[in-house]
């Protein structure tokens, strides 16, 4: 499998999009920290940028890359290689290159300007988000043979997770503001990895006071050790379920 990973990584490097993504992330991060006078504000600015761009690039690049690898996959299928190995190699190489881009582009400035637990949390959550959205990309790419449809599905999913989900939550909170739904909101927030990441970082930044009573409930849950373990576990589920589902489908696909 290492050989296949090597070939795919070489191909991704030649592609240069990941390089551009690294540079963009670096530009965002350095300017976010440079413009704000303290690192907390910088982190907040950067948080919003990262939570929009990282999932977008991860899901779109991965989806398009999988579709463009159709020939590569077909060529390898006639060779003595397990199907699961081909799919896993593709997944690992995409994750690896995008993680590398994120850790170089955003990681270095974060570690320089905010070398504390918040900065570290940003790095970990950013990495989780990258892998999760690559994983979701695999699921949408295997769902249909039609490239335009597959990319469309990926874009819709990004829109949903990055923008619509927030609106939905806001709508729910307003509609049911008479009821004690704060505990339920914790569960609902786990339906979107981006929202979970945002809440976990905001709580670390101690700006949860701005979120009112809901913030207090969140803090009570996400602030504890148990809460952190549960949320990390949920993020792992977000990483593995879409990918394993796609792997199962790929193993049974006719090519």
């Amino acid at each position, binding site marked *: 499998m290492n*050989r*296949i990973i090597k070939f795919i990584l070489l191909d991704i490097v030649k592609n240069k999009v990941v390089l551009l993504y690294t540079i963009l992330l670096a530009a965002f991060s350095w300017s976010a920290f440079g413009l704000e006078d303290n690192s907390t504000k910088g982190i907040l600015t950067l948080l919003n940028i990262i939570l929009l761009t990282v999932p977008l690039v991860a899901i779109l690049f991965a989806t398009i890359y999988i579709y463009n690898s*159709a020939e590569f996959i077909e*060529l390898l*299928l006639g*060779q*003595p290689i397990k199907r699961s190995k081909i799919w896993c190699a593709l997944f690992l190489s995409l994750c690896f290159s995008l993680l590398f881009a994120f850790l170089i582009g955003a990681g270095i400035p974060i570690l320089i300007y905010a070398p504390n637990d918040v900065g570290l949390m940003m790095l970990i959550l950013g990495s989780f988000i990258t892998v999760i959205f690559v994983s979701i990309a695999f699921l949408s790419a295997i769902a249909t043979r039609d490239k335009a449809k597959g990319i469309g599905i990926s874009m819709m999913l990004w829109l949903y997770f990055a923008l619509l989900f927030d609106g939905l939550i806001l709508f729910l909170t307003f509609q049911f503001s008479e009821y004690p739904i704060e505990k339920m909101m914790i569960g609902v927030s786990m339906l979107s990895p981006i929202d979970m990441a945002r809440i976990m970082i905001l709580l670390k930044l101690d700006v949860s006071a701005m979120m009112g009573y809901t913030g207090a409930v969140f803090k009570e849950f996400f602030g504890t050790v148990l809460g952190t373990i549960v949320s990390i576990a949920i993020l792992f589920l977000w990483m593995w379920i879409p990918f394993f589902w796609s792997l199962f489908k790929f193993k049974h696909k006719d090519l």
Partner: protein
Amino acid sequence: MISIIKARKQFSKLQVLDDVSIEFQRGECIALIGPNGCGKTTLIKSILGMVIPDSGEIHFQGKAVLNDETYRKQIGYMPQIGRYPQNMTIGQVIEMICDIRKPNQSLDEELLFKFDLRKLYHKKMSTLSGGTTQKVSATLAFLFNPDVLILDEPTAGLDPISAEILKAKIIREKSNGKLIIITSHILSELDDLITALIYMQDGKIIFHKTMEAIRQESGEQRISKALAQILQKQA
């Protein structure tokens, strides 16, 4: 060597393989023929594990091919339309496949030289003509000295000289005792190649006969005429 037992496959409503059972033996050279869309390529792809039959089994040397990939070491496959990573060069594709297959015996580079592909090593797959792509496919199929060669319309798109080179190569490998499965629409070029013939229609095998039997039955030497006669008799 390869046995297909009651394979069935349906693509949406179309039954492409309908209860197909065949045995292939070592040393045979079998032509799979039939009208377009009769299931030839699907049959080949299911031997390779690229298409998974809805029911039925495929055995390679007595072992089921599902969930096992090592048997593909012994197969050289030349697809009907070879699709290759567009931004790789011929050299890189060949090198990559070598790297993946890790052959423990020396490579059979005969076609590589006869097709003069070394000169084109630096060319990207996206810039190649259909015929050159076919040459790459053929070279890759024969490169690892496999026991089984599966050739899906091997000469389609090749110029006459290259087609002759490929035919000569097929005959040589046949005499080496390899199992060769060919699909083709050009019956005349099969005349001096094959030992048996399978005729498929609508996913079913209409008949599977050795060439001797066919020639005796029809009294014709040429496949095209013999086939026409047999099909007429059956109808």
